[in-house]
């Protein structure tokens, strides 16, 4: 669960380093702490170790399937907001879960910011 005394933490899980890089730049510019994960198998442990306020998760990553990653993350952090990003326009089943949103790449900056802000506000709301 987020530490209300510090900046919100966002875990960015994407196997594309360039994408992670621009997302980091965007979110750090908004005052978020960013933790990057480039492999699907490391997502769960990253979430467990840094207790983020938001997980941005690419739906197709090496190391683990979305279903497996999603289930493991939800097992440890039931209410963690998750933003699913996909290079394809098809909406994955997990997008219908509570505290979960979905955006299709490439995401316009304004839409990314508003979605992240909206999701973060749910966890930081008293």
């Amino acid at each position: 669960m987020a530490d209300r005394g510090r900046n919100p933490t966002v875990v960015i899980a994407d196997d594309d380093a360039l994408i992670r890089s621009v997302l980091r730049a965007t979110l750090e510019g908004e005052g978020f702490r960013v933790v990057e994960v480039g492999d699907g198998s490391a997502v769960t442990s990253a979430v467990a170790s840094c207790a983020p306020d938001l997980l941005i998760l690419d739906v197709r990553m090496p190391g683990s399937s979305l279903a497996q990653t999603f289930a493991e993350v939800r097992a440890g952090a039931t209410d963690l907001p998750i933003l699913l990003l996909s290079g394809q326009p098809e909406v994955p089943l997990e997008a219908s879960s509570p505290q979960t949103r979905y955006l299709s790449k490439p995401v316009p900056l304004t839409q990314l910011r508003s979605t992240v802000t909206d999701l973060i506000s749910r966890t930081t709301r008293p």
Partner: protein
Amino acid sequence: MMVRSQILELLHTSGIDRLVHDLPDAMFVFDLAGSLIYANAQLTARLGVTPENYSLPFGSLVAAEQRDEVRAHFAAVARGETAHYTNAATLPDGRSVRVQVTLMPLLHNDEVVAIVGMARDIEELEASREIRSALESRLESILNSVSDGFLFFSPDWRFTYINPRGEAIVQRSASELIGRSLWEEFPEAEDSGFGLAYRRAVAENHTVTLRDRYEPLGSWLEASAYPTPDGLAVYLRDVTAEEDSRLQLIASESRLRSLGALLDVAHDAIIVRDPHHVIQYWNAAAARIYGWSAEEAIGTSARDLLYARHDEFDEATRRVFADGHWRGELAQQTKWGDTIIADSSWTLTLDGQGEPETLFTVNTNITDRKREEAILLRAQRLDSLGTFAGGLAHDLNNVLTPILTSAQLLAEQEADPLRQRLLSSIESSALRGAEMIRQVLSFARAGWKASECRSTSGSFWLSSGSCVPLPCRRTSRCRSRSVIGRRTPSAIAPNFSRC
């Protein structure tokens, strides 16, 4: 010696003259001197002889060369004996006939007073005997040579005649059977159909015909029994071979009916043609597939009836006549004007001289299957295209994401108008590229949006999870719906490996 008048008186008082006057044989009376005293009507009519015109010795009654012999007979009779002899008599028209003569003495007071004679024309009798003998011989010859059996039975059922063919049929010789009882020699016949038929023919006095199997001889026999005044005549034929053929024919017809029924329940069209393609057999499936009934199709040319294009048909014909068989796909036309695709198998049979006799054809209607294969192939191509487009879209969107985000971030921090325009161009290009990717995906997946028919065949499901419908059938009702497109989370299971 009595004189003529006394003898005539004696004939008259004894009634002899009246008794013999109208007999069919010639009757005469001579006195002992050899004079004709009496001639009955037959003698006068046949020989033209009367006591008045008769002249000694013997007139025309006795041929000259036989007169001594006849005199001797007369002398014997004059002594009280009886004489029988044959001699030639000459008729008034000059013809000579043979007569049989009997002479007896006419006694009065134990003395011979005259000679009474009777003459019978035996010319016709002997001719009749000869004719009868010839006829009998000829009849026997005929009966012996005919191919059917003749048997004659006496009224007490004894064999009186059996010809050689009859001997062969009953497997017994005439010498064993003639004079023997039918029922003793063939005891099984008495209660058989033949025994009943023979007795019925006699009892009802009409012809009875019967064809039946006679087990003791192991034969099928046909008997016609004709009652005669002398018993029963039986005309007997061994019809075993004929019956065997008939039973075989019945069995063959039964097998053919069974085979025909079997062919009629087949799903494939079975057609038999002669070497000139004239249809000789057309099963029920052929009628269902092509629309023409057997009555309409048989006798017509299969080439003209079923084929609008003759090049493929003629090539198949050339091959089957060369190789004895051929199999391939042919486009055929139906009575309704449709064109169907048939998987056609042809076999040529030859006659005893090795000449083409019959063409057997089995046609399977594969029109639906060919159409389904084409649709499936198209769907597979579209599926591959969709897979490729999906992967490409993912990668390109991943490429565009940092470009778009970076351009928008930089633009927010850039005060220089030129740089602002350049960053705006990058942003616009990235967004245009993303839109193009979306359009490519939409185009590639347009094939997944298809109509689905209500049919018993169901639909094909591809690896991508897309549904490919089967083709419409003539009688089914169709409905359209989008089977894939933008998936909704609750409706379509995800395929993570492709996201």
